[in-house]
């Protein structure tokens, strides 16, 4: 019989037996970051390949959610900090070895780009806008003016400089899309690397985590687009994309566990939490069955022309993606080196 005891104030709930320092905020942050990354990725991608007209939801509408997700994600991160008043310290250094640091910086860059991206489509998203009647319009009066003469939107920006910038931005959407694509991939991978950088937690210590989180982020984004879109072809395309991503995810998950089982005792023990241990049921039911397999079946059926409400698989995927992050963060903090 092996018996291990710890004596000290460390047997305090705040500290031991599990160094549980991250709570709901981090998984929420990771989920929203992944979602935003996916949304921006698709917007950029379809712009680059010149299909923005065909995939309007992906390029125009869905990205509206990205800055919202990023801001909410950052709020979650801020809530996680035990000393948020020193938040600005993050931006006093660039610390490339620290995923937290470059995550903070990537967000710093991707957030304005995503906002501008969305703003540049405002006129197309809200072409008719009664400044005088709409409360929002009244509030926006400071920055926008009526524009009756032209075609397209019935409003325009008040300041010349913004108008000029907008024209330029729209002209250069493709190069901007390239930047956004790259940042989105970094952000997507980052959500996984944040965890996998922590060697000390055997469950997180896997190079598969980066691609896995990226794929999962893309998948949640695809699901969102599929849900929002009312264009039949776009829906179908994203169903297909999603199906593909689900297959990749399942493949990565299998590899993740195979890697663990082939690894050190600590990793085997980490994997055991999912193969009979306390996270088994939550993981396999919520993440794999509800979040991946069932939506995959539903999407296949739909592609085979069965009529099904698209929100069902989409919601399941989002649920699965969220729970996946919760479990990974939670379980990772339980696993430890054995000595």
């Amino acid at each position: 019989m092996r018996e291990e005891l710890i004596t000290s104030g460390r047997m305090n709930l705040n500290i031991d037996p599990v160094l549980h320092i991250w709570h709901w905020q981090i998984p929420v942050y990771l989920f929203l970051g992944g979602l935003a990354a996916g949304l921006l990725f698709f917007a950029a991608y379809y712009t680059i390949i010149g299909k923005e007209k065909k995939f309007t939801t992906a390029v125009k509408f869905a990205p509206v959610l990205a800055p919202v997700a990023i801001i909410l994600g950052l709020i979650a991160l801020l809530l996680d900090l035990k000393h948020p008043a020193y938040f600005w310290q993050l931006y006093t250094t660039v610390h490339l070895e620290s995923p937290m640091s470059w995550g903070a910086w990537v967000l710093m860059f991707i957030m304005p780009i995503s906002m501008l991206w969305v703003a540049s489509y405002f006129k197309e998203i809200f072409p008719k806008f009664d400044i005088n009647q709409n409360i929002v319009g009244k509030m926006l009066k400071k920055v926008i003016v009526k524009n009756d003469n032209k075609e397209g939107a019935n409003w325009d920006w008040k300041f010349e400089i913004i108008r000029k910038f907008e024209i330029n931005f729209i002209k250069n959407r493709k190069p901007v899309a390239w930047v956004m694509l790259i940042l989105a991939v970094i952000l997507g991978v980052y959500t996984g690397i944040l965890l996998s950088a922590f060697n000390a937690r055997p469950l997180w210590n896997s190079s598969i985590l980066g691609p896995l989180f990226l794929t999962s982020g893309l998948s949640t984004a695809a699901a969102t687009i599929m849900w929002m879109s009312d264009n039949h072809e776009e829906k179908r395309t994203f169903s297909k994309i999603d199906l593909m991503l689900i297959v990749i995810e399942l493949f990565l998950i299998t590899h993740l566990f195979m890697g663990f089982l082939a690894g050190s005792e600590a990793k085997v023990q980490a994997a055991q939490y999912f193969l009979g241990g306390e996270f088994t049921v939550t993981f396999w039911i919520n993440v794999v069955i509800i979040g991946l397999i069932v939506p995959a079946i539903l999407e296949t059926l739909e592609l085979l022309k069965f009529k099904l409400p698209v929100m069902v698989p989409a919601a399941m995927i989002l649920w699965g993606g969220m729970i996946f992050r919760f479990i990974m963060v939670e379980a990772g903090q339980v696993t430890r080196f054995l000595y």
Partner: protein
Amino acid sequence: MKTNRREFIKISSMGMGALALATTPVLGWVPGFLKDDYTNPDDSKAKRYANYCEVCFWNCAGWVYTDEKDKIWKIIGNEDDPHSNGRFCPRGTGGVGMYNDNDRLKTPLKRVTDESGKQTFVKISWEEAFDTIAEKMTEIKDNYGSESFALFKHGSSGKHFAQLLKAYGSKNIAAPAYAQCKGPREEAFKVTFGHPLHSPEPLDIRDTKCLVLIGSHLGENMHNGQVQEMSEAIGKGVNIITVDPRFSTVASKSKFWLPIKPATDLALLLAWIHVIINEEIYDQKYVEKYTFGLESLKKHVENYTPEWAAGITTLSAQDIRDTAKEMANASPAVIVHPGRHVTWYGDDTQRLRAVAILNALLGSWGRRGGFFMPEKAKLPKYPEPKAPKPKWSWRDISPGKYPLAGTGVTNLLIDASHPDYEGDHKIKAWFIAGTNLIASIPDIKRTLDALNNQEFVVVVDTMPAEITGYADIVLPECTYLERYDSPRLAQHREPNIALRVPAAEPRFDSKPGWWICKEIATRIGKGDFFDYKDFSEVIDWQLKQVGTSLEEMKKIGVKKLNRKYDDLYFLEDEEIEFHTNTGKIELYSTTMEANGFDPMPKYTAHQESSEGFYRLIYGRTPAHTFSRTTNNPNLTALKAENDLWVNPKVASEWGFKNGQKLWLQNHQGKVSEFPIKIRITERIRWDSVFTAHGFGRTDKRLTRGYGRGISDSEMVSDVKIDKETGSTGMRNNFVTFLTEKPNTAKKES
């Protein structure tokens, strides 16, 4: 049903601000205190005050540091102190918690009964407390004689209370440190070598080659100097033999661990003696020169063979032989440790006699690596008038019983206080200072019956310990960090003096013991026994008589004096006169014989556990001292409750899970007040369970200790009295497990 006159006052009835119940449970952590640029308090700016530790009776000397704000910061050992060598044990280091504990007694309290018959404590002034006490003391003296006032004490402030009782005219004074602790050992060594061991035991552990520990769990029992020397000896390659039913910490550091069946140690000891004599591996020159009775002993142990002992102890005969040889090989640098808390089975004097005999055969007494000859510093007595001579004392309570008892026997005082006592020497009132009798005296019911039979009870404590709940008057003493006391004069290799001065003002309305005693004495017309304004005058006067002063001692804390003779060990072929009847080390004890006891120890079997019951054994845990630290914020952070060690076989038989909470019921039907978590561990035999003493506090005012774990004392209702000394054997209790607390009639207050 008649209600107890001295009903235990529970906190529920203790409202009305009689006690400002601390709502801040822990030593307040002030958020932001360390904010911004936190720097550690600076040693060079800190002040330090000499003190000796009161968290246990090893009384290590050290320094109490206060920080820039004059707040007590840390306690560090004094390098010159032979007890601590500059290093305290965790309890001593955590002594700051005794001071910081907000649950401390804050004001004097008085028991009152309201119209509805409900008893409560109310806060009173010191004046009122003293007047009440003085009035009662005079009344008791007039009605029954001053001898009927008994004092239970423990610790250094006890001296002042003993002085008070002496002035008043009573010698009925006892401490649990005798009949619940080392009594049998002291007498066994006294009849064998002519000297009791006293404290700290004069063991030359640092130079020993073989250390035999029989139920002495050094390392958990943190007697500082001994632990330090043991570690030094480990560094030098000492061979340790540990006899313990439990794989104690030191067992894990031993060459031999003998997992003996509890209660059978005497069989092992006799077999060892048998082997050592029969194989003639004893120290022949030494035994011949210094001892008396070898031939009788040889005959006596003839049948106590290792094979015989193996059957009793469950050890192997081979191990018994091997360990006997191990000791003999190291002789005379071998110590068969006498232990300290030795009141186990009621034949303890005889068991300790066997230990003493074994040491004599190995020639370890008076030898390097064995027992050294200690020396103690002396201070002249501060002048005082002649005390009245009491007409009787504790010795007269049960005439003819316990003839070897050397100092006050607590349980004899309890006998004389009990309603069933029919003798002429009744005790009618108790003073209790620095001992929590509810936790330290076995058979709690008997103690309570005796308490209830008293006309007046005063308790002086620092904490709302259980015993305070039974007092008529409770007096809050300040802690050792806030007061003067007599300098420590303890024996050691070098005689030495250690000083105690306050490092901070007493918190709340607590006061030093000397002041309390002086005020009471003045009111009973005995003020001339406390003829000083401040106790520091007494200390200064005494120190000046031996060529130092309070001022000098404040700077050095500890003063080592020179030995009078260079006699730490016996010289080669030195003629020694031992203080025994024969002038020799008595293997065969003439004193025992004269008092009608076996002159040489005989093995008698003890009661065994029955089906489903396990012997309850208990001991220390390094971070706590008895019940005095189980509310200490620093130390409860390390260990908040005790657990019950249970062998995995037993646990699986019962289907228990690790950490499961159980109630215990002993073989006399006594059920524990609280549940205890079980710790399933290979480190204990299957016929016994083990727990640490001092937990399971029942007074709700102890916010950190209340209901944490169980009190072993509660389970010790079957007490076997040692015939020689009257000490209480406490390991004859067997417990079984209850998964639910039986529905005992509600004890509403």
